[in-house]
């Protein structure tokens, strides 16, 4: 089948990485020879705390907005939940320099495949493509630079159900039945999701969108309470997490005003009135 659409050199079977290599457009991988660095080592920028779980309307994927380097907040508007194609979303925790490049690579690979082969890449193919990028990056992970632990959610058109995967740094892929988390704030988020799934009024998969959204925001806020690297839900700076939903009809990014409304409506401890300076005197 591949040979028919191939050209003389049989390049139709080549993947996107191969194409970039042939054109000399693939940069050398980041390397670090382990030589001396100044001080206790170069602090790397890291993006933290992402979560995803299945609910009635598909998969909800959310990430806070903070990127840190050591104990310094580098950026408070980082987007860690990235749309890869019409039906797929990837969320990243780890070093953004590597992770955003992986997302770009993945997006272009899927599109290149669709355009050149005149068919969508299969779901298994897509899941493995990310696995391969992680494996290619493992040399860096061993050297202590550029580790990325992503989540990947997509809609399975053949089985008509949403699918959710998490990975380890070596590229092993695991399919999650209910929820998956990653990043520095993930222990707290995982506990919240476990609690809600097991002891809540209903399991996560039967939650409606409004409840699912509220749970995601509260889980991120809970993580931020103890983890300085997690931005949580910053209601003073109005920097809200990024929340995307993957379903049969595609990927939808929830607008900020919906997040604000959902969060504030049910917030118990939101101060109703902040006293003005003059009132304090």
């Amino acid at each position, binding site marked *: 089948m591949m040979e028919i659409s191939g050209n003389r050199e049989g390049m139709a079977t080549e993947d996107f990485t191969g194409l970039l290599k042939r054109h000399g457009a693939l940069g050398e991988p980041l390397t670090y020879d382990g030589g001396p660095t100044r001080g206790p080592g170069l602090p790397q920028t890291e993006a933290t705390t992402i979560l995803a779980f299945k609910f009635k309307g598909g998969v909800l994927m959310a990430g806070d907005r903070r990127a840190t380097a050591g104990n310094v907040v580098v950026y408070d508007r980082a987007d860690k939940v990235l749309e890869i194609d019409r039906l797929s979303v990837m969320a990243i925790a780890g070093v953004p320099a590597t992770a955003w490049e992986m997302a770009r690579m993945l997006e272009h690979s899927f599109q*290149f495949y669709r*355009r050149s082969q*005149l068919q969508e890449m299969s779901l298994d193919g897509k899941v493995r493509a990310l696995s391969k990028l992680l494996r290619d990056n493992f040399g860096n992970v061993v050297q202590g630079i550029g580790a990325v632990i992503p989540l990947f959610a997509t809609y399975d058109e053949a089985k008509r159900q949403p699918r959710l995967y998490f990975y380890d740094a070596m590229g092993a892929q695991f399919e999650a039945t209910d929820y998956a988390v990653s990043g520095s704030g993930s222990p707290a988020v995982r506990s919240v999701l476990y609690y809600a799934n097991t002891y809540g009024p209903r399991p996560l998969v039967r939650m409606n969108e409004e409840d699912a959204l509220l749970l995601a925001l509260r889980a991120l806020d809970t993580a931020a309470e103890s983890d300085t690297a997690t931005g949580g839900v910053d209601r003073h700076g109005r920097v809200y997490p990024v929340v995307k939903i993957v379903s049969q009809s595609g990927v939808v990014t929830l607008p900020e005003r919906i997040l604000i409304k959902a969060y504030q409506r049910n917030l118990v401890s939101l101060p109703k009135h902040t006293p003005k300076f003059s009132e304090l005197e």
Partner: protein
Amino acid sequence: MIEEPYRWMEAIQNRREYIDLQLATGSAIVALSCPDGVLLLTVGSDRQKLFEIYDRIAMGGIGHPGDLERLRMKAIEVTSVEGFTRSSLDVSLRRLVHYSLSSMLKEAFEQVYGAPFLVRLLFAELGRDDAPDLLVRLDYDGSFKANGGVLSGKVEPFAVVAGQPRSAAAMEEYLRGRDCSSATLEEAKAIALDAWMIGSLVAAENRGAEEAAPLPDEAAIARHREKVLGGKAAVEVALLDRRAKTATTWRPLSFEETESPARPADEEAEA
């Protein structure tokens, strides 16, 4: 023998005649700029002839399937690498045609010991913001013609490629008399299909290429349409969707179904 200039010109002329003969039976391709985007249409039976190249670029072609495939892959490779290493905003049809494809075709055509490409291609690029859509016809010898001039500023909202020059001329004459500036997608499809039918009728006429003839009338077009579509031929339609909310604008359409431009997923997001 080829070292002598005269022989070389003779060889080129022979090769031109040979390729023209090979392309003569090709099914024409129509591109129409309308408010919904750029509509591409052709009629065929066995293989796909309209293709997505990049976010805002599409290609249609007549000729040898193997050659079409090589050029299609070349176009996808060039645009994909550029889009990845720089940005999708740096990918342009003008650069693709001028710097990559045209020279490749010319070289193959004039290397008289090698095989030329047996193709005639039509490229469409959806204009960004208010820029007009760019439609380019690219021939087997590397020569190309756009739908409007950078210098003149006048842009034609259509382009066709056909197996025979007189078919293309008749189709262009017909399209020049139609206004698609406010046409719905359904109207644009009908206009493009009529243009294709005219090209097909003119190609079948038994007359010299130089003789001018009036365009077939509506009744003749309708009769021909019934005859063509009554057989195993089917209409292939695709759209570069001006209203797409994603970076990818390519949308294969079905001819029979009425398409609604609004998609449910977008409406949910707005709600």
